[in-house]
């Protein structure tokens, strides 16, 4: 019995830690959704683009790890800059649907660019962290928790705190929240929308890079990252599109639930329910709590 409980805890903890990876990707979506009320379909491509560039710098140009990281950050800021100038600004004042379509297009451009620059083969990314259980925890707590999962969890946690502080206490953050609430009113009091857009897309780019590094270290840097990133969709539906804590909790929830379902219910379906179980959960949320767990409720005064 004790073994079974231990196993259950292990499954849940493993799921939660894997969930932080979903959270990381979902964070990127939330940032952009907050500022322009658009689901950024190119987020997956950004993840792929960012991490492929990072690995490319390291492997093709022998750039050291830290420098490659900053080069990739710099590159993602350039991508943000170009997106603002070439996609968002010409589409200003168009409907949100138009913007949505534009992000799909942007996604294809980024995918193509990344592959044109760095090639199509799967690359290994070695962060120096192994995808094996941490011995200390395995010995003392009898839980098998992968080092990479734990690292991802810590990194995700750090980014959340950083972003929350950025939004809550900086001038830019205030501007961003103002734009998220009412872009027209924000521009009427002189908040320059283009700066806010640039900030948001750059931040989303950096988040994409970090998410890509975590995913890439585990599964290899490859095209499949683009689709993996779409796992963030049920995370966002559950957590709420506009909430940073929501993205985190939603990610954890999806991670834990899909692992538990896979292990305990999976066998009845012949396994591999991980792939679709989150979407079933998302459908229930859409039916019964469409704003998600933490989505900003529409404020109605009576």
């Amino acid at each position, binding site marked *: 019995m004790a073994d079974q409980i231990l196993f259950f805890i292990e499954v849940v903890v493993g799921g939660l830690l894997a969930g932080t990876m979903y959270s990381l990707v979902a964070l990127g979506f939330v940032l952009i959704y907050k500022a322009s009320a658009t689901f950024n379909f190119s987020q997956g491509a950004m993840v792929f683009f960012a991490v492929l560039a990072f690995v490319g710098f390291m492997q093709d140009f022998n750039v050291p790890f830290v420098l490659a990281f900053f080069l990739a950050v710099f590159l993602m800021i350039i991508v943000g800059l170009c997106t603002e100038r070439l996609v968002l600004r010409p589409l*200003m*004042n168009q409907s949100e649907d138009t913007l949505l379509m534009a992000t799909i297009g942007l996604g294809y451009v980024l995918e193509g660019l990344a592959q044109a620059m760095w090639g199509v083969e799967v690359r290994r990314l070695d962060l120096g962290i192994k995808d094996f259980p941490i011995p200390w925890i395995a010995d003392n707590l009898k839980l098998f928790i992968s080092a990479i999962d734990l690292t991802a969890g810590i990194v995700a946690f750090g980014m959340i705190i950083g972003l929350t502080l950025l939004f809550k206490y900086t*001038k830019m953050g*205030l*501007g961003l*929240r*103002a734009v*998220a*609430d*009412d872009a*027209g*009113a*924000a*521009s*009427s*009091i*002189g*908040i*320059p929308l283009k700066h806010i857009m640039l900030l948001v897309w750059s931040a989303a780019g950096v988040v994409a890079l970090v998410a890509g590094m975590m995913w890439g270290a585990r599964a290899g840097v490859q095209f499949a990252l683009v689709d993996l990133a779409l796992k963030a969709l049920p995370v966002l539906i559950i957590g709420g599109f506009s909430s940073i804590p929501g993205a985190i909790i939603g990610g954890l929830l999806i991670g834990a639930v899909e692992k538990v379902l896979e292990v305990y219910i999976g066998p009845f379906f012949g396994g591999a329910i991980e792939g679709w179980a989150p979407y079933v959960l998302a459908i229930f949320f859409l039916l019964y709590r469409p704003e998600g767990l933490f989505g*900003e409720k529409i*404020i109605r*005064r009576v």
Partner: protein
Amino acid sequence: MSSVSGNILELKNVKVVYDNVILALHDVTLNVPKGKIVALLGGNGAGKSTTLKSISTMLASERGKVTGGTINYDGNAIEKQNPSQMVNMGMVQVLEGRRCFGHLTVEENIISGAYSRKLSRGDINQELEKIYGYFIRLKERRKSQAGFTSGGEQQMIAVARAMMAKPKMLLLDEPSMGLAPQLVAEIFNIVKELNEKEGVSVLLAEQNTNVALKNSDHGYIIETGKVMLEGTAKSLLNDDKVKELYLGISKEGRKNFRDVLKEEGKKKKKKVN
């Protein structure tokens, strides 16, 4: 030019078209003298908001365009500027319908108005105290979420937020909309106080003709995108046509401005006959 005429804002024969086809303003000419309050009056769809937006350059975001005439503000021709440049030049518009940031607190809303200025934390607090001096009610509610405050408070937030940008000129779009008479009076008192103590010039679009004229120096009445009548606030308040059409003081009920003109035309014809 403005220093000679004493006007902070001058519109000459301004024409505005939306979506390249819809003519919203035919011909608007108006002046706002420095340090005065000018009322822009008219019914729904007369072109009040469009006039204000053509000045603050918010038109572009609604696919509108000034296609004729000139707008001159503080000695500069307004052509290619964007709203944030206008704010930097000291011109701030308070949009129709208040448009507070609902999820931000009252205080965050007001502070956001200072975004365009490079102020230290201390300066911001100082400015904030000054603003609260005018909007005492907001100080009590500083920590509440703006979306849950009353309509009157939201209107005050919108004006307070605009004042944080330290404007030379305020464009107010229907501050009285949907508010109880007592609150309307309160808000107009604050606007007057700001005008007197801070020296802000005000161009005020209103449907509430009575309150607006009582609180301003000069008035323009526009209908279907044209200035139909102008004069000092006092003279407009005593004008028979204004009384009948906009103040509802008439034996025959409400009429359209054009009908009155037509009737007058008929009367003249009769006299000739």
